[in-house]
Structure formats: structure tokens, C-alpha cells
């Protein structure tokens, strides 16, 4: 550990946190697709609006989980700083 000081480790942690939140792209695309299909479903069958909405929210929340894992990794790197000696 002698040659790398703590500032270097903190800088690399910040870069890693930035890379980790790129995971948000996937859920964004997925939620958009789900919302688009839900809008199409409501357009075809306006009577089922509440059912479609609750199903869409549930699916979106499940799809969101992978993005949240990325966010958690970023939080750990930034605030818990597990890499510091």
C-alpha cells in the first residue's frame, strides 16, 4: 500500500462510483418500454386503465432494482469508502 496514498484511492473510488451509476441506463430504457406499452394498452382498452397502471408500476419497480444496485455500489464507494486501508 506504500506507493498509493489515500487521495489516489478516493479519486479512483469516485471514478468507480461514476461508472457504477451507468447501470441506470438499463432500467431507464426498460421503464420507458413498459410505460409505452402500457400507454398503448390503455389506448386499445381504456376501461382497463387502473389494472394496466398498477401492473405497469409493479413491473417498473422490479425493473428498477438492477439500477438501484448500481446506485448502492456508488453510495458504498463514495460514503463508506471500503477501499481505504
Amino acid at each position, binding site marked *: 500500500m506504500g506507493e498509493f496514498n489515500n487521495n489516489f484511492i478516493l479519486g479512483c473510488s469516485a471514478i468507480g462510483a461514476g461508472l457504477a451509476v451507468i447501470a441506470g441506463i438499463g432500467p431507464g430504457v426498460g421503464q420507458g418500454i413498459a410505460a409505452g406499452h402500457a400507454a398503448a394498452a390503455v389506448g386499445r382498452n381504456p376501461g382497463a386503465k387502473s389494472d394496466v397502471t398498477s401492473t405497469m408500476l409493479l413491473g417498473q419497480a422490479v425493473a428498477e432494482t438492477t439500477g438501484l*444496485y448500481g446506485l448502492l455500489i456508488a453510495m458504498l464507494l463514495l460514503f463508506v469508502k471500503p477501499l481505504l486501508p
Partner: protein
Amino acid sequence: MGQGILLSAGADIDFMIHGVFSYELFGQTVWITTTHVCVLIVMLVIVAFSIAANRAIKHASDVPGTFQNVVELVVEMLDKMIGGVMGKFSPRFRNYIGTIFIFILLSNISGLFGLRPPTADYGVTFAMGIITFVLIHYNQFKYQKVKGVIAGLCDPWPIWAPINLIGEIAVPISLSLRLFANVLSGTVMLALVYALLSKIAIIWPAALHVYFDLFSGAIQTYVFCMLTMTYITNACTTDE
């Protein structure tokens, strides 16, 4: 130097859990943290509401007053939501689902009142995940018997059993992490706004509060309860 990574805000950013006081238990130092205090406050609010609701229902009148109307509305809404998902199993789980619904909702909203939301502590959400996990497997063994559980574990072929086992263990972890990370992200973002933009954060953070505390909190409450109900209903349902 450790704080240097937090942009230029110095020590103003505060969304961590703090210890209030510590005591010794079996040689371990145990901390009473802000989470405990916030859970206690939320609990007191729920208990006070319950006592008032009990009194209102005992003296119920044919033409309900305002408070009785609110209580009936809450109970009917929960009954409808639980009955819609669980069907014939709903009477047995109405108490549990209703309790965690109200508790999570009030916990998420408590960010509006200056508390740190208790659900932004992984200890709280993981405890609820564990309760759900125990409920799922208790009911699975009760309704599907040991044979059905083993058959479900070896679903396509017996060689898939380890993967199915990991899938079972992942249920409470993903359930609790989803709630935790959603509430935590809102808490962190609001703390960053208040710390970094403290000079211009006058009225407009109210909009952020509406989104992060009310909207996101309500959605996550709904999702947690829906998923819990879905998992339990799946565990109760037999093939016949």
C-alpha cells in the same frame, strides 16, 4: 480529508445514521441510533391513530363523522387491495399486509417532517424482508407439503436445484434492497440539495419533497406490499 470527496460542501451534508447513546450488552457495545428514535416516533403516531380509531369505531354512528369516515376509507382501501391480489387467502394475511403498508407509508412520508426515514436504514427493511421470507416458506410447507416444496425446487430438472435455491434466498434481499435504495436515494438527494445549494434552496425543494417523499414513497410502499402478497399467494397456491 475523508470529507474532501463530498464536492465542496464541507461537513454540512448529513444523511448518515447517528448514534444517540450506547450501552453494553453481553460484552458488545450496542447503539441506540437515530433510526430507533424515528421508528419510535412513527410507532407512537400509529398507536395514537389506532387508539383514536378504536374509540371512533366503538361509538360508531349510522351517519359517520369525519374521523370515522377516514378510518373506514383506509380499511376499505386496504381490504380491496389485498382481496384483489390474494383472493381466498386474504383474510389470513390482512393484518400483516395492512400493518406493513401503514408502517412503510408513514416511514417514507416521515421525511417530510424532518425525520430521517426509518426505511432508509437497511436494518429496518431487511427485518421486513426476513418476515416475508419466513411467511413465504411457512405457507409453502403448510400448503404444498414437503413433496411440493421439493418438486418446486427441482423445477425443470433436479440439476437446477442450486439455482432455484439461490433464487429463493434472493427474494428477501432484493425485496428489502429495493425499498431501502429508493428511500435512501431520495434522502441523499435532498440532503445534497440542502447542503450544496443552501443559499438558494428557499421554496422550490418542496417540489422535490413531493416527488421523493410522497410519490416515490407511496409507490414503493405499494410495490413492497404487492410483491409480498404475490410471493405469499404463490406459496399458498397448490397445483390442484
